[in-house]
């Protein structure tokens, strides 16, 4: 189960909220202070991408963000509910002019994420896609009894 789960309407103004929540939970989980800026940026990029996909696809479902604190690592999973092209299928909006611009913006966001995060998985299926990112954590030092 996620430590914190966030669902928000696919609106640009909520992406900032997701960034703030993710950074706060990451800090508490023990992600290095020096990396928090990267967490904030990466989760913002992933949420921006999901919001864009939902809006362009006319999806009314919320964007889902899972913040998961595990032993020695912290994961963030940003999920969308947009049906993605599956191997052998036809990509949605294939051949449309606007699709090129959207694809460029999408790729820029993914380029930033992959440049920032070493451990990242992007998956897409017929029922939606997700970006999962992981960072190592430093366990809190326990005070001597």
């Amino acid at each position, binding site marked *: 189960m996620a430590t914190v789960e966030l669902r928000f309407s696919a609106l640009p103004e909520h992406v900032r909220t997701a960034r703030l929540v993710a950074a706060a939970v990451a800090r508490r989980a023990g992600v290095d202070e020096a990396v928090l*800026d990267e967490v904030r940026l990466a989760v913002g990029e992933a949420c*921006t991408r999901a919001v864009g996909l939902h809006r362009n696809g006319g999806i009314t479902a919320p964007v889902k963000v899972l913040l998961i604190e595990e032993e020695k690592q912290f994961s963030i999973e940003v999920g969308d509910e947009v049906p993605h092209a599956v191997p052998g299928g036809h990509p949605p909006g294939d051949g449309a002019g606007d699709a090129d611009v959207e694809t460029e913006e999408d790729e820029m966001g993914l*380029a*930033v994420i992959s*440049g920032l995060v070493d451990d990242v998985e992007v998956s897409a299926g017929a029922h939606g896609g997700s970006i999962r990112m992981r960072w190592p954590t430093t366990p809190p030092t326990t005070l001597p009894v």
Partner: protein
Amino acid sequence: MDLSLSTETMGDRTIVRVGGEIDVYTAPKLREQLVELVNDGSFHLVVDMEGVDFLDSTGLGVLVGGLKRVRAHEGSLRLVCNQERILKIFRITGLTKVFPIHTSVEEAVAATD
């Protein structure tokens, strides 16, 4: 923090001072400002990003769009930025090769090419 924008003219250069967060929500305001300046005949822009707390790929896209617009009029778009966390995003995306990035407004205004 929301986005703050102000402009100032220095000779043939127009300084755009940006403050706050540039993301998917606020970037359209910056885009409108840059489009308006170019439409009004300001083709040599210096975007001062010293007050920017956060920049994402949407913001980068707006800056690239601004650069395309001024170049169509043989103009220029220079950036002023000393913040490592912002510079890192330009480096990751290879945009340090696209934008001249200066350490001060004075340096950017004095630069020719």
